[in-house]
């Protein structure tokens, strides 16, 4: 089982490799990837150096080109595919069918992974992408239970990668227009969710902080209450006379305890979320998962997650809470 780790910057890439990532995934510094944040991502020179660093240690580099270009933007996405191919990356991660088709025709030798943004949740959808674009791997959306993941693996349509740890998108990836509805900026088209330029914090005289997104109130926090980043899905709202996290509380996905089942199912790769996170996060989370995977390989009998590993992961989780999310049937 390969460990695929995020790298939003050259130091994060190095941290991931040094701590045992089998592969890192990165993005170019533009809207061709789903973490198009200011100050994040790789220039061409950064990527040349990063690939040399990874390949020198026998690891792989994937480039995420997983946003959806409009007709006028298609040329830029195709150019990004060409750039990734010419730099010698090991795979590209794509969602848009037009981009996948171009890559399959122009660079048949470059491995194509279906991004989580491609929203493929069934064997039929996976067959479509394999037959149409010859994908080498698919990343599953965070909507399936562990049993459903196991059943998809049994079909052996295409090797599968699943999310192991990180911020939890509560909605089917590639199908969420909450950010777009409020700000006009969407993950699919612009590679951003609830961008910072629309966020406004106001402090009231009593110390209560209000946070709004493009003028729409997302949450209010008491003076000492911890406050997370205001994505629409993690705000508190009034429903039926109660105010609560109606869609999702700030929490992170953590599937560490499912590791033996994921391995037994035949999942080929585990993805750590977080290209927007710093070097320290990448180093620490990669390190924990490396140890966990290695111990499962060398001493599978009676494997269970170390309490120290779980503590370390919780430290990096949103709101310091973790969940098995949709992998677990009783999640609601």
């Amino acid at each position: 089982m390969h460990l695929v780790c995020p790298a939003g910057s050259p130091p994060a890439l190095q941290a991931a490799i040094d701590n045992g990532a089998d592969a890192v995934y990165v993005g170019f510094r533009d809207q061709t990837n789903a973490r198009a944040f200011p100050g994040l991502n790789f220039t061409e020179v950064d990527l040349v150096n990063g690939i040399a660093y990874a390949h020198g240690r026998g690891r792989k580099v994937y480039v995420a080109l997983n946003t959806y270009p409009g007709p006028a933007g298609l040329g830029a996405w195709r150019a990004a595919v060409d750039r990734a191919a010419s730099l010698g990356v090991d795979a590209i991660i794509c969602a848009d069918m037009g981009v996948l088709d171009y890559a399959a025709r122009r660079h048949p030798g470059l491995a194509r992974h279906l991004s989580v943004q491609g929203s493929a949740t069934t064997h039929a959808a996976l067959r479509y992408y394999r037959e149409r674009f010859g994908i080498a791997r698919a990343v599953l959306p965070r909507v399936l239970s562990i049993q459903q993941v196991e059943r998809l693996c049994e079909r052996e349509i295409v090797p599968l990668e699943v999310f192991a740890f990180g911020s939890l998108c509560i909605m089917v990836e590639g199908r969420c227009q909450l950010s777009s509805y409020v700000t006009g900026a969407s993950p699919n088209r612009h590679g951003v969710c609830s961008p910072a330029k629309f966020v406004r914090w106001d402090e009231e005289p009593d110390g209560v902080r209000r946070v709004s997104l493009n003028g729409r109130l997302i949450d209010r926090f008491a003076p000492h209450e911890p406050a997370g980043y205001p994505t629409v899905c993690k705000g508190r709202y009034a429903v039926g006379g109660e105010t609560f996290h109606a869609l999702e509380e700030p929490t992170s996905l953590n599937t560490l305890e499912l590791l033996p089942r994921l391995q037994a199912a035949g999942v080929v790769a585990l993805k750590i979320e977080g290209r927007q996170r710093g070097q320290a996060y990448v180093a620490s989370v990669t390190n924990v998962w490396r140890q966990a995977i290695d111990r499962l390989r060398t001493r599978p009998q009676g494997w269970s997650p170390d309490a120290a590993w779980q503590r370390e992961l919780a430290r990096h989780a949103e709101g310091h809470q973790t969940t098995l999310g949709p992998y677990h049937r009783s999640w609601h």
Partner: protein
Amino acid sequence: MRLTLGPLQYFWPREQVLAFYRAAAAWPVDVIYLGETVCSKRRELRTRDWIALAEELAGSGREIVLSTLALLEAESEMSSLARLVDAGFRVEANDMSAVQLLRERGLPFIGGPTLNVYNHATLRLLREDGLQRLVLGIEHGRALVEEFRASGEPLPELEITAWGRLPLAYSARCFTARALDLAKDDCGFRCLEHPDGLPLASREGTPFLTINGIQVQTSGRCDLGPELAELRAAGIGLLRLYPQAAGMAEVIERFRRAIDSGVAPARAGEENGYWHGTAGMQCVTSP
């Protein structure tokens, strides 16, 4: 320009659904989309009942289309999908599983709004697969249609949502069950109590979203009636109106009159931002 009645997004009691569609058979719409697109646990009408309803309405002179689930997770949902695809009606494919089944059978289809068709290259691939009509994704507006035309690619029929609460997101979680503190697997079918969804407001009481089971919708209703001339000029061939619990006949009548007379109606809904290339929640008033 034709009018379409989009698939029912809410969960209504069986008798209410049947009464709604009996009435719809007499409404001045050209196309009726039938089927459960949100949650497979909603079984007031089972797959076979939707197919039977389609057969019943086929004699009404309307084009009848069966719409598929937007998010499939379980094997049982794949079986229902196969039954819909094989029922002999045109199908609106709302995810790539449906596209694959239709393509394998060589059947033409309608691409639903959750397919993620953002450019002409994708559109060409889907046309090769059998796509004959595209329902534009909800965040698509005038600019995308213009860019499609400028690409020179032959275009299928284009349908746009002109009325109703827009579906914004889908999840493995049921937000209605969560709001009522129930487990999804033991939800008690409480969506039945919310025939137009469950309103969600900001902490200061501003209406914001609508919870509809595993789906999140807008609170305000999209209304592109006042944009009629622009829609026509852009080559939009079909206007989709989403069912609501009350007043649907009036909604349809308003659009019918507008199309027949060529006179755009006064604004009745709250939002049109996506058509104008801005945040969907906004309302752009034309100069």
